[in-house]
């Protein structure tokens, strides 16, 4: 950890753009991965990026179709390696997980829908979604909360980033019943992971030119657990004198977010609070259908929606909003350094929303997912 800190600090001192090794690692390996496939010559002169795709449950497959359609129409140089892993559809097994993991190791970048966790206890406390996160060590979840121009909500022009530690905390899957009728659930907070997520948050803020990082906690009650988290954030904050550091208690944070969200910039927090705040913030700008998100480890980047919800009621009804997944796909293209294509996709989506003529049900319109996707394709910058 100390070595990583020192290394990153050195890079930071050199170029205040922050450590680029997250991006470099994924891009260079995917180019070499595609170049090594000599049997099938690339369709274009430039390298085609290979990305792992995991449609997941609920409306995930429909949203992935939207992404594929838009990419095809926009001639985006990305090829998808599809995997179908699902607990509720009985398509989950250790082998499948291994296949998926080896694809990820090759491609380094993935786009995925949510793998639904069935509520019944099937003998394994950690869901597939959690296990995937842990095996790939996707410790940082980043959700971009941006108001959509043309879609008015109570608070407009929002621009927040929510960074959530997602491998420990309350979701450590450590529960036991020592006495019948009394369950103990262990919330794990470690110095190493707290430092790591704090550093990620400050590096992210530095790289994106943000001004403030606010740590969210409940250290007044969980004095040792959240207290440790807070202490780590404060320690890391000292390494970044240009970024303002504040902290706020989770319940007050929720209240402030609904009353005056403009006071926040980048927020960093442990697992459970992150899950709640992600969804709260999604609600502020239009719901689960419009907020993109991604998860990072030191080597991998997984792009998904911000508020993860399989939305099973909408399956097959063609009503899900592809916005979040398309914006996330655009973020993925930026991560792959395909700036031009990234802008092309995100601009098209934003243009359709701004025009207001074609909107899915969650934004108050009557369009189907297909109609929305077609509108986006029609608006791809040509």
């Amino acid at each position, binding site marked *: 950890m100390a070595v990583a800190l020192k290394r990153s600090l050195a890079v930071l001192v050199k170029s205040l753009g922050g450590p680029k090794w997250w991006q470099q690692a994924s891009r260079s390996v995917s180019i070499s991965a595609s170049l090594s496939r000599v049997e099938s010559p690339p369709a274009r002169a430039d390298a085609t990026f290979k990305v792992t795709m995991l449609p997941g449950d609920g409306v995930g497959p429909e949203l992935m179709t939207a992404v594929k359609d838009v990419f095809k129409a926009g001639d985006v140089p990305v090829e998808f390696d599809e995997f179908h892993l699902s607990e509720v559809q009985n398509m989950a097994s250790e082998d499948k997980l291994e296949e998926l993991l080896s694809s990820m190791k090759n491609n380094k970048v993935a786009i995925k829908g949510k793998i639904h966790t069935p509520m019944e206890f099937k003998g394994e406390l950690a869901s597939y979604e959690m296990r995937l996160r842990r095996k790939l060590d996707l410790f940082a979840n980043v959700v971009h909360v941006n108001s959509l121009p043309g879609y008015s909500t109570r608070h407009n022009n929002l621009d927040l980033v929510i960074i959530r530690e997602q491998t420990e905390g309350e979701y450590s899957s450590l529960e036991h019943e020592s006495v019948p009728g009394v369950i103990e659930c262990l919330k794990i907070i470690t110095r190493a992971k707290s430092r790591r997520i704090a550093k990620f948050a400050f590096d992210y803020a530095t790289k994106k030119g943000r001004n403030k990082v606010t740590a969210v906690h409940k250290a007044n009650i969980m004095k040792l657990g959240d207290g440790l988290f807070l202490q780590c954030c404060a320690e890391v904050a000292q390494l970044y004198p240009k970024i303002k550091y504040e902290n706020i208690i*989770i319940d007050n944070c929720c*209240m402030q977010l*609904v009353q005056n969200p403009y006071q926040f910039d980048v927020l960093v927090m442990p697992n459970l609070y992150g899950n*709640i705040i992600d969804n*709260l913030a999604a*609600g502020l700008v239009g*719901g689960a259908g419009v907020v993109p998100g991604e998860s990072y480890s030191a080597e991998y980047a997984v792009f998904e929606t911000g508020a993860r919800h399989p939305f*099973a*009621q909408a399956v097959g009804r063609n009503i899900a909003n592809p916005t979040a997944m398309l914006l996330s796909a655009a973020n993925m293209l930026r991560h792959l350094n395909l700036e031009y294509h990234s802008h092309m996709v995100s601009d098209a989506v934003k243009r359709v929303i701004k025009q207001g003529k074609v909107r899915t049900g*969650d934004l108050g319109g009557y369009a189907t997912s297909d109609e929305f996707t077609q509108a986006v394709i029609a608006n791809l910058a040509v």
Partner: protein
Amino acid sequence: ESLSTPSNTPETTRGMVQDPTQFDVLVMPNLYGDILSDLCAGLIGGLGVTPSGNIGANGVAIFESVHGTAPDIAGLDLANPTALLLSGVMMLRHMGLHDHAHKIQKACFDTIREKKVLTKDLGGNSKCSEFTADICRRVQDLD
């Protein structure tokens, strides 16, 4: 309108921000209650107007406002008594004194609706005693 019924706390949080009218009574464990109660207080105007009660067995109960002690305005006759007053109304209902509870609640709501003697946090510049006097006057008029 929300197309999906929330099935866990994060989804409920989102639903609460997008369309709180889909909910009626919510019951939950400790931490979620802490978070959600503050969130909902934010939706209706903040802790200065939110009442609360703690109910135990055998009718034992403590009613309280959940805002801070506001040391910066203490002793200056500036505080908004709404939260504590409405908590008192909750207490009266708990004790079965429904008529009194109804009168005081109506008086309080009417005063706020009229907007003539609001305390600073509600956008006016009246004193706490003036706000209270207005409510008292209305209670007496309702008798």
